């Protein structure tokens, strides 16, 4: 199994974790080809997770833009409210198969932590979630949700007390518990084999789009759009179309308060190559290699790195990446709510903004698919507090 995407990826971890990662790779390689495992996953995806999710033709949004037909891939309808489900379910089943009874995970705003708690509950595993102290304070309800499902939440008070630090802390835990603990990483980043494995589990998104669009339009999309935090929903959307060179791919990164302000999370747009938390990729960092704090209105995009496969696709120019500001994301959050009755996650609103922009200048017989990675209920307080509605 190739541990790299071009020069990106790799396995930059303490020696103590190497055997566990090698184990994981071995087990995953067997599992991914084992019909029993795949059948189990497919069954949970379907009966528990609510897959397949619809590919919805957004008639009114299309009319609003006046260009290409816009379809929305509705990951917001997954159990738990986001695409996070796909990855978590796959990895939790793998953990069970490996005989690990304890899951650990990092979480930023709480989406991945909640999803992990949920997967642990349904499979009867233990879950412990690392979450930065500042995030815990901001996301009281998500913390409660995890506890309600029986997970333990560890507040992380090191570093910037945010997602990045929660990952560090989870890796530290894992270094001491690796024999009986499974580290359930939440995005298509981290050391090999996570980027590949998470991408595979998330590729159900793109595979479904392919089939569904074939049924709806009799062809392939002209453009795929997804938001990029760590990059898992985007790579899951893109990957099944990599060989189809006629299909353009666009990743929407958080430009925060603007790329020029330094307050953003646009590692692909203006980051530089480095190594963080196990993999080589584009990063937000200073001249000495110290990692910058990221900023985005969308908590799930608030990460200074990005999955290595995106760095590779960027260099190849196979995918493009653009920044969407907080303000633009907020606007499309409101637009989609009012025009389609779908309140997207603020993360997904970045994709909506980029997708609308593109669709507007495309022709009416073209097709844009935007992945709605999650629902916006979690973001209502944030938007409410901004006082932008009414």
């Amino acid at each position: 199994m190739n541990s790299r995407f071009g020069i990106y990826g790799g396995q930059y971890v303490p020696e103590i974790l190497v055997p566990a990662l090698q184990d994981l790779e071995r087990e995953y390689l067997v599992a991914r080809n084992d019909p029993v495992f795949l059948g189990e996953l497919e069954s949970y995806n379907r009966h528990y997770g609510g897959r397949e999710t619809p590919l919805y033709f957004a008639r009114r949004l299309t009319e609003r833009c006046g260009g290409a037909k816009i379809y929305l891939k509705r990951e917001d309808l997954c159990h738990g409210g986001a695409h996070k489900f796909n990855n978590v379910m796959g990895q939790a089943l793998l953990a069970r198969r490996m005989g690990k009874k304890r899951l650990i995970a990092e979480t930023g705003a709480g989406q991945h932590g909640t999803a992990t708690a949920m997967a642990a509950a349904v499979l009867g595993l233990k879950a412990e979630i690392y979450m930065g102290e500042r995030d815990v304070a901001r996301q009281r309800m998500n913390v409660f949700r995890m506890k309600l499902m029986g997970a333990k939440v560890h507040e992380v008070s090191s570093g910037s007390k945010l997602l990045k630090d929660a990952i560090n802390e989870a890796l530290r835990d894992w270094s001491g518990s690796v024999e009986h603990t499974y580290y359930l990483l939440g995005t298509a980043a981290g050391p090999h084999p996570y980027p590949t494995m998470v991408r595979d589990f998330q590729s159900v998104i793109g595979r479904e789009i392919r089939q569904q669009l074939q049924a709806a339009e009799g062809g392939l999309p002209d453009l795929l759009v997804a938001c990029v935090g760590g990059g898992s929903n985007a790579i899951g959307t893109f990957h099944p179309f990599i060989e189809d060179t006629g299909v353009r791919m666009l990743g929407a990164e958080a430009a925060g308060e603007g790329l020029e302000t330094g307050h953003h999370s646009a590692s692909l747009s203006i980051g530089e190559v480095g190594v963080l938390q196990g993999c080589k990729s584009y990063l937000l960092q200073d001249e000495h290699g110290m990692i910058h704090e990221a900023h985005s209105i969308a908590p799930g995009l608030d990460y200074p790195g990005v999955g290595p496969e995106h760095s590779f696709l960027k260099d190849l120019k196979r995918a493009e990446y653009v920044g969407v500001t907080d303000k633009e994301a907020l606007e499309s959050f409101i637009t989609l709510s009012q025009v389609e009755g779908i309140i997207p996650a603020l993360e997904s609103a970045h994709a909506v903004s980029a997708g609308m922009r593109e669709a507007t200048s495309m022709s009416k017989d073209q097709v844009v698919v935007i992945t709605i990675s999650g629902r916006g209920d979690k973001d209502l307080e944030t938007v409410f507090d901004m006082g932008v509605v009414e």
Partner: protein
Amino acid sequence: MSRLQKTFADARAEGRTALICYLMAGVPSPEDFVKMAVACLEGGADVLEIGVPFSDPLADGPVIQQAAVRALENKVTPPMVMDMVRELRRRTDRPIVLMGYYNPIFRMGEERFVDACRNAGADGLIVPDLPLHESISLRHTCLEKGLDLIQLTTPLTPDDRNSELVQATSGFLYLVTRTGVTGGGSVMAEDLRKMISRTRSVDRHVPLAVGFGISRPEHVRAAREMGADGVIVGSALVGLTLNGSSADDLKDAVRRLASACDAERPQIQ
């Protein structure tokens, strides 16, 4: 013979266990750091290990994390660390090893970084998030430039990989004696005994230094008893640089550890 090799050879000849003292560069302040390092030397440190601060030190426990935060607050950068090494090199002939995460090295460029180490007078380098299979080019550069790139091995490392690590390491082999991060915990005697014996069966000569969880003289004695060539003490000393202790306090602490390093060695059954 590199300084590190010589130090271990000398210690072995003298029946001593080499004492490796870890401090975070620029802590408590860039100026006082040098005093602290000198105190370690005066207390009896055989080797100085100097941490290069990084924003995301994922292999470190709370004490060393806190030291990294302090160093970064003090605006310590890798070039400044090189200056501190240069300063120390003027005052001592004992080996100096840098411990730094990979991104700052990658950022500066492996070759430039290794050159800077050599020019400053450092002897070795430990990169805790660069496992063997990711370190090929850096190892090559270090070999070429004469910097010892020290590998780590752990209780979980399989035998064949352990053998590779023994072959690949330079200067000494760093035995991580417990799973987890630096600081706290205690040496797992059983693990350590096994680690030493399986390593010795591959290479009877490579110096073995034990780290992670060594903070008190009795830990040192335990490691010594099991046949370790060196012990690495980190968090316990770094803690003193963070809590307002004086250079003399530090020197005393090192002295107590150093005297455990040449305590009478009981017979190994």
